[in-house]
């Protein structure tokens, strides 16, 4: 048998790449994570065919929860066509045979790096986030035992001090990605690596958020209908990124997370799926029926 044949046999034998007991171990960790919102649950991160730091944590979660009937969407920086997204999607699809989509409305599992889709997600969907640095307190403390103690006693004063110092030095809170949120009034969690723009999505959402950090061997979760408040002083409003007067050069949307086109004074939507849909049916010209449908689904919530 050649190496290629061996590799192929190994790849096709096991649904979703991981063996069943590994998947069960991950699912158990996820159940704990959902039961204790915001708590970082250790798990036995497996060696994956992607390097740690390239989404191995999110990948293991997706592989552990995916079923044959699921519809998958993978995004990287809001883009379905990013190299990392394409590679991960290819791996998941080829080991499970599930169908995939770029339209977030059709997906049941969305795996993402850097963004939460602009389109509000539903209760029958799961958003899996690939996390590089799960520890929100890493910037203020490096000793693991001390970190464990701080979480155990909800002793977050040094986190507040870092926000205080940021405000004193810069006049505004400069932390961009991974903004800390207090989940369910108990644990501080890093919303790494999404921009501040996406942070309000986590609060009282319909969808289940699962976070996986492969290198750090941690999973954590924000369940649906759970409070996730960004840490901010009472008299300093939490603000999302915004550039005055900026709008997407392709679809014209001002109310989306925009990225600057290098070398030109122009912005485009970071969420390519959202942008494409806007171009196909400009939001201003959307049919009455569609708007009513959106309103109804929100009312159901």
């Amino acid at each position, binding site marked *: 048998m050649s190496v290629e044949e061996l590799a192929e046999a190994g790849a096709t034998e096991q649904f979703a790449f991981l063996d069943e007991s590994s998947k069960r171990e991950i699912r158990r960790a996820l159940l704990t994570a959902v039961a204790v919102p915001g708590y970082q649950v250790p798990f036995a991160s497996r060696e994956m065919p992607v390097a740690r730091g390239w989404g191995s944590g999110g990948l293991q979660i997706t592989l552990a929860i995916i079923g044959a009937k699921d519809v998958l969407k993978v995004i990287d920086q809001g883009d379905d066509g990013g190299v990392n997204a394409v590679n991960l999607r290819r791996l998941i699809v080829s080991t499970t045979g599930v169908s995939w989509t770029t339209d977030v409305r059709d997906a049941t599992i969305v795996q993402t790096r850097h963004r939460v889709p602009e389109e509000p997600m539903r209760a029958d969907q799961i958003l899996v986030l690939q996390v590089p640095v799960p520890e929100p307190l890493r910037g203020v403390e490096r000793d693991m035992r001390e970190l464990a103690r701080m979480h155990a*006693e909800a002793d977050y*004063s040094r986190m*507040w*001090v870092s926000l*205080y110092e940021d405000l004193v*030095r810069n006049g505004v809170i400069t932390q961009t990605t991974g903004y800390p949120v207090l989940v369910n009034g108990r644990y501080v969690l890093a919303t790494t690596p999404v921009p501040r723009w996406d942070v309000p999505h986590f609060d009282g959402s319909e969808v289940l958020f699962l976070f996986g950090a492969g290198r750090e061997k941690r999973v954590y979760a924000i369940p649906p209908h759970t409070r996730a408040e960004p840490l901010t002083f009472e008299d300093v409003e939490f603000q999302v990124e915004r550039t005055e007067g900026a709008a997407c050069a392709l679809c014209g949307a001002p109310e989306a997370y925009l990225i600057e086109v290098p070398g030109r004074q122009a912005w485009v939507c970071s969420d390519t799926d959202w942008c494409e849909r806007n171009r196909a049916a400009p939001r201003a010209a959307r049919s009455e029926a569609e708007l009513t449908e959106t309103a109804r689904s929100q009312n159901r919530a």
Partner: protein
Amino acid sequence: MRDWALRVENLSKWYGSVVACEDVSLEVGPGEALGIIGESGSGKSTVLRCVAGDVVASSGSVQVRDGAGAVCDLLELTPSQRRHLRVSALSILYQDPSEGLDLNITAGGNIAERLTAAGCRNFAALRSRARELLGRMDVDLGRMDDPVYSFSGGMRQRVQLAKAVANNPSVLLLDEPTTGLDASVAAGVLDLIRGVLEESRVTALVVSHDVSVVSILARRVIVMHQGRVVETGLTDQLLEDPQHPYSQQLVAASRG
């Protein structure tokens, strides 16, 4: 005896067969300052650190009574309860400011840590309280947003004092508060501490090897020698007429 706010009974601490302090008992009334003097190695700092909870006592009890009369045994608290107490009710000023402060953050930030730990979530309130405290401690307000490592020893001690009293503790422990400072700087800091003790009516325990420091801050004093209390009395009387041979030696030495 009168009412007490802090009571230590039969406190002992051994490191293996080495006795750091043995059978120490003392009572401090509400708003009173009690001094502990003795040479280095006499166990006075061990007593203070056992009260603060930095060192786990081998036996004995340390009790604090609040204004409402509720008694709390410090040695029976869990580490998390003790930390909670240290945020507001019980504060310690260390000889070395780096023990009580994070030198890498600003003077204001150090105070903000104590205030946020007690639940303050208002930025303007944090700023004004930090400014008020630092002003009271004669720290140049223009340096409030400088990291503490850039401060001189005396300034650091002033910042540490500001942090220690930020949440109006009912008990303040002072461990060699001016040791290591220049004579003139030490006098300034000492003056400040005396002002704080008088103004806030805080119950204080002052540990020092320096008889003059204790005589300025405390009306009552105990003398420790080789881990034991050898004499107790009013500071003035003890300095005038020490009874125990070791006290006599100590007082004589301080007169130089």
